[in-house]
């Protein structure tokens, strides 16, 4: 905790010193950014924009999780499914997503569905790939133990593969939240038509109000930290045994 605090203070001081050499147009001081941030909140602009953005994030993110986790796990269990689907998710994962924005607009227009689908396409490969890797790499010894104790295929799935998979699902959630927030902002920056957070960034940067732009970016970063914190708390709650074995599990030598 102390290291974190010191690290924050060093960055903050560095930023402040840097701002002394630039103007508000190039490097706004941290104090200006904070006062802009407070103003954005008090005036209700950021909360309004956020509520518009969050609906796309919530729908796109939830659909990604609900579809992505089962697909990833099934790919890990059924080799034929993995061979059929793996290449698409790998391709989607590395593709520069802004390139498909024009397609999204052509196909789905400017409304919520375009952004939801964009967030989904942006998020789901990360979730599928993470869950797939976990399920695929379930240590064979652990499955063999179950076989030695006369487990059925169904029992192996629910009592070995799924529990082993839980940490990977949590990792998928953590990485997925990050992707979904990125997708949300990119979609709004590139698809006109919403007055969400991305739009707000667009407006302030067009009027060269860098202080407000940075205030929003900082806010998004904080949002990411809060989401990650929630996922970590969730992890502690559902997989308390994981803390001691993470290293062993990842090297596959449990």
């Amino acid at each position, binding site marked *: 905790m102390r290291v974190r605090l010191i690290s924050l203070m060093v960055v903050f001081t560095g930023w402040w010193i840097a701002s002394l050499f630039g103007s508000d147009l190039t490097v706004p001081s941290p104090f200006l950014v904070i006062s802009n941030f407070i103003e954005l909140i008090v005036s209700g602009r950021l909360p309004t924009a956020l509520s518009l953005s969050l609906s796309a994030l919530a729908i796109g993110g939830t659909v990604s999780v609900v579809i992505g986790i089962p697909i990833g796990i099934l790919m890990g269990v059924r080799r034929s499914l993995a061979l059929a689907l793996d290449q698409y998710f790998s391709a989607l994962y590395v593709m520069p997503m802004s390139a498909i924005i024009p397609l999204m607009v052509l196909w789905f227009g400017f409304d919520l569905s375009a952004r939801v689908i964009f967030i989904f396409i942006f998020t789901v490969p990360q979730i599928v790939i993470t869950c797939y890797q976990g399920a695929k790499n379930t240590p064979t010894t652990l499955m063999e133990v179950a076989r*030695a104790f006369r487990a059925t295929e169904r029992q192996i799935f629910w009592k070995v593969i799924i529990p082993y998979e839980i940490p990977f699902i949590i990792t998928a959630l953590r990485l997925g939240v990050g992707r979904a927030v990125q997708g949300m902002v990119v979609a709004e920056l590139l698809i006109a038509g919403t007055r969400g957070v991305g739009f707000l960034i667009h407006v302030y940067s067009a009027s060269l109000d860098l202080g407000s732009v940075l205030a929003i970016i900082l806010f998004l970063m904080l949002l990411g930290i809060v989401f990650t914190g929630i996922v970590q708390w969730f992890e502690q709650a559902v997989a308390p045994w994981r803390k001691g074995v993470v290293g062993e599990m990842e090297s596959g030598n*449990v």
Partner: protein
Amino acid sequence: MSKGAIKIAVEGVSKVYRTEKVEESFVRRLLPSRRDTEIQVKALDDISLQIYEKEFVSIVGPSGCGKTTLLRIIHGLIKADNGQVLINDQQVTEPKPECGFVFQDFGLYPWRSVIDNIAFGLELQQVERAERMERAQHFIKLVGLEGFESSYPHQLSGGMQQRVGLARMLAIEPQVLLMDEPFGALDAQTKRIMQLELLRILQVQSNANTVIFVTHDLEEALLLSDRVMVMTRRPGRCKEIVEVPFSHPRDEAVMDTPEFIALRRHLWQTLREEQTEVIS
């Protein structure tokens, strides 16, 4: 000792492993033919062995001789290419309820507490929770793990982890115990303690009375067994079966007797012929 009924009969078991060969030529990799890409490794060659009720038989042999493969075939975890295994006069096609298995690397589930690991086999049999906890508790006591019921495997030492492995096997109340180098991953002192513990547990748990024990430790084999089968290097065949004449219950004292030392020397000489050929 007088021999009872035949409990396990291994009849002419052979096993060939087929593995894919990594092709060096790029064109061959693109256009593989079945003949090119398969390597056949003969692991076991015509093994026959009878194990009597209440008998403890160890299998020793050089590394890679297929002793673990043989144990897995006896359990029904893998299938033999030729020959068959009978347990209680019934052919083995899949793991049987009367057999328990202990793994060299323990094979505990990291997400299960000690008691839940021990109750795993009962859970698969859909034994009711209250009953399986009670039965698991009995075996926790037997292997000396009281107080660790709710610990997780990563919090235990290797010796304690294998105590969990033993209790998990015993909890399903098997008649036949199949043990694959169970103490191979432990340090020398812990290993000795676990060997004596196993002797004690087998005295107490008299329905679990027929044991096949794979090891590469000759002293361990002699201390625990009634007979020791020595296997040849790959492809594994039965080279010799050595009778161990000491009566039960045994303790460490037998290890200092001249007979024990003579047997150990004999086993080592038999095994050494196989070992050196592996090296050279």
